[in-house]
């Protein structure tokens, strides 16, 4: 039997027995499913029906090995759709792959009938089908992973945007506490935000407090220096505060040149310097 013959036989079997295959498959899936309400069941039924239809016509095309071939485009698109919908709804990748794998049993049952008396034919057909469904199952896992990755990236971006609080300490004096670990990409975004806030508030001095930053490496130190240089070019100045002993050591160890920059151990000290530079002073009233 040629590949084309197998393809015809398999797709014909699916076509003839679609209802029965579909029903058995659905029953298996529902048995496995923990979540079950009317809407979910209806969606499942719809997915099964659509998949069987496309799977049937894709096999009829004759391409039974390469699922990247364009005759399988519709099936892949459908699986991608199902997979990302489930990913967003909180399914595990296994659950989604199982959707594909559990088609094997009902399909094999019908193939046994279709190839009755032809043991070799049945063995080959079963092998072809199992390979196909394995590849398609794996494909759903890939898509699932990609969707999850995209969600993570988006969440990271949102975190980034939330992490530069700005506090106006006094006229023309801003405090910008940096919180959390700073990797190169995040640092750049944070630094751009700081500069924009300086412009928006018309601050003369920005105190960048790094108390909440556990470690500072060369790249972060360089970005800090660049931010201060940029602020100066714009007409404002920066003070770095909240330098913990370990960070002081790291900075010296890295050979970062801080001659030009005012650095203070605490935000309070930095605030006093900022006040002085903006021409203000604090007087303690005598009781």
């Amino acid at each position, binding site marked *: 039997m040629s590949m084309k013959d197998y393809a015809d036989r398999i797709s014909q079997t699916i076509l003839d027995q679609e209802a029965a295959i579909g029903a058995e498959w659905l029953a298996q899936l529902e048995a496995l499913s923990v979540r079950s309400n009317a809407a979910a069941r209806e969606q499942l039924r719809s997915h099964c029906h659509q998949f069987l239809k496309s799977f049937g016509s894709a096999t009829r095309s004759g391409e039974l090995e390469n699922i990247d071939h364009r005759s399988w485009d519709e099936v892949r698109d459908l699986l991608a759709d199902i997979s990302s919908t489930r990913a967003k709804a909180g399914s595990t990748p296994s659950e989604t792959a199982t959707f594909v794998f559990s088609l094997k049993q009902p399909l094999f049952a019908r193939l046994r009938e279709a190839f009755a008396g032809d043991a070799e034919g049945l063995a080959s057909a079963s092998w072809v089908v199992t390979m196909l469904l394995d590849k398609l199952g794996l494909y759903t896992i890939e898509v699932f992973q990609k969707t999850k990755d995209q969600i993570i990236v988006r969440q990271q971006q949102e975190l980034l945007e939330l992490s530069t609080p700005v506090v106006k300490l006094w006229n023309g004096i801003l405090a910008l506490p940096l919180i959390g670990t700073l990797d190169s990409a995040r640092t750049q975004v944070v630094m751009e935000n700081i*500069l924009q806030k300086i412009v928006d508030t018309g601050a003369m001095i920005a105190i960048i407090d790094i108390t909440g930053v556990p470690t500072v490496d060369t790249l972060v130190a360089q970005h800090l220096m660049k931010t201060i240089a*940029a602020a100066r070019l714009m007409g404002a100045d920066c003070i770095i505060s909240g330098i913990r002993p370990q960070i002081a050591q790291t900075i010296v160890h890295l050979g970062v040149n801080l001659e030009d920059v005012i650095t203070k151990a605490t935000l309070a000290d930095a605030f006093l310097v900022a006040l002085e530079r903006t021409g203000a002073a604090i007087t303690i009233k005598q009781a």
Partner: protein
Amino acid sequence: MERIPILRMGDLLLVTIQVDMHDRLAMQLQDDLTERIVKDSAKGVLIDISALDLVDSFIGRMISNTAAMARVLDARTVVVGMQPAVAITLVELGLTLHGVKTALNVEKGMTLLGKSYK
């Protein structure tokens, strides 16, 4: 040829750069400013670049040179309104605008000038 207008306010000259300048225009501005400082006995020059979304080395040098020439003529220069993206790019480029005072906006720039030539 078009020129960038220079406004006079007392002994202060005010320039607002709003176009994407080609090199000739930048050179023309430099010449015009130097002439006007002498002609109007100006003591201060305020260059507003808040509308510039780009400052490259040529424009940077023009600004530095203008400030240097102004100082020789006993006038002070302040550049105001540099956009953050421009500042970051200049730092990366390694251009320092040496000898040029800067301020965040026109108001602060005028205060800065007021201090230095009172």
